[in-house]
């Protein structure tokens, strides 16, 4: 318990040190005018007159990330289950997933915009990257039950689907949740990048317009919100992952 407290203290201290350094860089202008003092960014964030603008953008990005994440999780788990039940399809699915992941979202963007429209593109970009991460982590998880368990189910006369449900899936949960902690930051990142291609609302839109209009505080505020969002989703995924490991590993 005391060692956990110590880690927490170190963590907080580290963040404080970083903030102080950032503040010093900002006030001294060490890295030029695009690095404002942190206090100015905070003031912008807490100014009620900015809340509607920031709030709308945040809500748009979060809902795209959530929808895309949900699609990605369902699709990733679904493909992994298909690959496990129909081993003939597994190599094809592996290669297809690797191919999708190897093509950068930027390169796919024109095609995605044509098919899914400007508002749909962020959701699809999130879904694609989450599908890949969850597919890989779930597939390796479904393979992780040891030989003793497979032997047990074969002497019990279990059909493949029964073994899948009673051993492979529970044994896969820790790896699946590992995948979720990786997917969490990718969700916010994917949504933000997806919004660069002409979406009407979102943190990504704020990035683009703040850069074009040289509104440094707005740019930084949007970045802070994106990072905070990522951290919160990541933290939630990490808590869930720990609980799952305690139960299933």
């Amino acid at each position, binding site marked *: 318990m005391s060692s956990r407290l110590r880690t927490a203290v170190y963590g907080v201290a580290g963040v404080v040190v970083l903030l102080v350094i950032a503040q010093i860089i900002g006030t001294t202008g060490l890295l030029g005018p695009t690095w404002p003092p942190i206090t100015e960014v905070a003031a912008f964030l807490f100014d009620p007159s900015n809340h509607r603008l920031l709030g709308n953008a945040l809500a748009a990005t979060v809902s795209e990330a959530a929808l895309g994440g949900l699609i990605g999780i369902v699709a990733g788990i679904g493909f992994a289950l298909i690959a496990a039940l129909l081993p003939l399809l597994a190599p094809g699915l592996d290669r297809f997933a690797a191919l999708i992941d190897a093509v950068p979202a930027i390169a796919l963007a024109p095609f995605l915009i044509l098919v899914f429209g400007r508002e749909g593109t962020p959701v699809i970009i999130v879904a694609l990257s989450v599908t890949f991460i969850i597919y890989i982590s779930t597939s390796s998880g479904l393979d992780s039950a040891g030989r003793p*368990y497979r*032997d047990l189910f074969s002497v*019990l*006369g279990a059909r493949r689907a029964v073994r899948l449900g*009673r051993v492979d899936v*529970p044994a896969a949960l820790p790896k699946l949740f590992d995948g979720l902690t990786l997917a969490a930051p990718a969700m916010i990142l994917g949504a933000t990048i997806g919004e660069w291609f002409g979406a009407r609302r979102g943190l990504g839109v704020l990035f683009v317009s703040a850069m074009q209009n040289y509104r440094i505080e707005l740019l930084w505020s949007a970045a802070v919100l994106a990072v905070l969002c990522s951290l919160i989703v990541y933290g939630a995924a990490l808590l869930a992952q720990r609980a799952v490991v305690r139960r*299933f590993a």
Partner: protein
Amino acid sequence: MSSVLQQASVTAPSTGSTREIALTGVAKTYPLKRGASVTALAGIDLEIADGEFVALLGPSGCGKSTVLRIVAGLEQPSTGTVSVGGASPQALSKAHRLGVAFQEHSLLPWLTVRQNITLPYKVAGRPVDTAHVRELIDLVGLGGFEDARPKHLSGGMRQRASIARALVLDPDVLLLDEPFGALDAVTRRRMNKELARIWAELRITTLLVTHDVDEAVLLADRVVVMTGRPGRIRHIEGIDLPLREHTELTRSPEFHEIVDRLTGMLETTKAA
């Protein structure tokens, strides 16, 4: 306690089919890296009659678990044939008529003791006989630990849970791989006694792998002594001791004569 046995015989009416095990000319080689291979078994001929209890003794690494895995249908013999009740071992496991307690306990870590023991019912798609499960839990001395997870149990308790799981469907054939290895001497003898009692009632065809010569002689109709590298059968001892209380039996000179002879055989085997 005898109600367990009555219940068992009610839920598992004798199928009338024979349940003998036959290994004929069985050899097993495992491929190793770079084209090398290891011969785990060579020329194994062994018949276990319907309702017979056979114990397998031998030094570590001589292939006892390999014999058991071949009978369980988990490994294919490289040459030779294996049959259980005239059919393949897989046919027996597909019919949910095989009970196995493995050397590694293989309890599912996310299930409680009770859930682990009821697992064979779930896999077979049969309704759980809770009274039977309850009595098996008491029989292996795990009463009060039904809702514990395996990681909170000692090694010996896990082994007892996996014995209960192997017995729960009243199998036709029972395969036990050093099931009492992690138990203290006293609990071990108590479990031996319980197993002997269940077994006398149900007459399950049983193959028991053990390192304990006393245990083998106490429980088995025949004791098979193996030698290693490659694994072969060195000697088969028919045990024909008068039916007596275990503690009484272990004190008898006939019992000691057999145990000493088999122990001597194991010692020379190890030295070889």
